């Protein structure tokens, strides 16, 4: 499946989100801090 990009994940939720998607079978999860420093962009592959 094509990667899915979540473009506005609050920093507080990133940790559990990454863990959830890895538990769900994601092969690769990339987190990039957004310019606002409050949110991240998360690409799930």
């Amino acid at each position, binding site marked *: 499946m*094509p990667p899915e990009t979540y473009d506005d994940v609050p920093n507080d939720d990133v940790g559990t989100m990454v863990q959830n998607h890895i538990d*769900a079978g994601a092969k690769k999860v990339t987190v990039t801090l957004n310019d606002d420093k409050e949110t991240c962009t998360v*690409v*799930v592959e």
Partner: protein
Amino acid sequence: MRTGTHQRRMMTLVSHAVGLATFATFAMFCTGCASSRNEVQKAAKDWCMTIRGSQVIPVYPLTEDIQPGDIFLVQVPIDKQQQLYEQNGFLALDNHLDRMNPTNYAKFYDHSFFGKDQTYDLPRDWIRPTGTNQSWQLAPHAAFPSYSFTVRNGAGMNLAVPVQGVPVGLSLLASDAASGTIEIKDAYTMGVDTISLYQQLETWANRNADFLGYFGPSGKQTNFLRVVTRIYATGKMSVSLKDASSRSGGLDVGVPKPVNLLVPALPANSTNTSEAALQNYTNGWNTLSQIVQAAGAAKDAAGNILPGGSLRLTAASTRSVSMDESFTPPIVFGYLGFDCAIATNGELGAPIPTYAILDRLPVLGTIRHFASDSSAQILRGWVNHPKSADIPADKTARDVTKEREGLITAWIKVRKADYNFAALLDRSDLGSDRQLFLKEKGAEYKITQ
């Protein structure tokens, strides 16, 4: 006696020379066989990489019979497609499902390439125009950079570059190593917008939902429809080859190379050297041109020239040869398109540019928005932050989280939905599903805010 001994020695030397030549030929043949396949694959890949470098997906082999609106079924997973694309440089267009006739050409070209108050029935009126207009002449022009390559070990005759000027040029040079360039000239393009084509595709998919239903997702396998939106055609390619072989060993096997015709020895008793040289050059040139034309013009039983390229010599020397290969009519060498995933019941996903899928660009794929509604917060809290009272003494919070992930997965499975539990927790577009889960399972699982 002395003469007889000399003759025997000469015979022995000749025998050795013939043996050496035979061995050399055999060795070259074997080397050529062993490396031929690799050379062909490499050449095909190099050619396709050049076309890809111009942001165009190569068509291989070249064909006239591909046009905007063509629909192909792609059953190779994306990662495998990327792997094949990197290995071979192209993807086979072998599963041609249907051909749509794009209806938006008029609007697309109305203010540019269609004359005022003129309408064309595309692609026919550009590909096969009536009257004096030549094929593709009315279409928008395009330009591409030249393509450089090298060939070795006699693989040239089987070279996979889809231009016959290359093997013909190599045979003229009689070279086991050459470097060259191919320049795509007289390039044209024709296309139509993605939006109108996607709308047509949706109509087509509704009409053929039963058929597409066979190709819905199964397990991790997702099938795609690939639709061509733009094609690129060429009417002429220029091929230049330089002999890059080293003959320091002095062993020549086979007949002298044809381009030596350009530098024959002058008549010993000639009084007008310049005239004789010119005449010799002209004769040699004419002979070479005839060889090239004979090599490039395939004819049927009735003597008619078959479709394909025709060759014309443009320059030659003892170590280089240049020629133009004309394609009449022009032939398609590349395309652009988009892919749509086939969902269950034959429904289609969003159009994604084929180029983005194949080239491992930093594809964002589907853009999702992180859910921040109350149902998402409740569900994420329940899964990721179990209350102390809910954690048995023999388990950890992580164990409970995994169990709850499993409960959500089971619920999704019963509903046969096409997402996983993490998506249900995080995707903003699944709010109604989260609410349904809380409604159906909230009390049972004691999910509270």
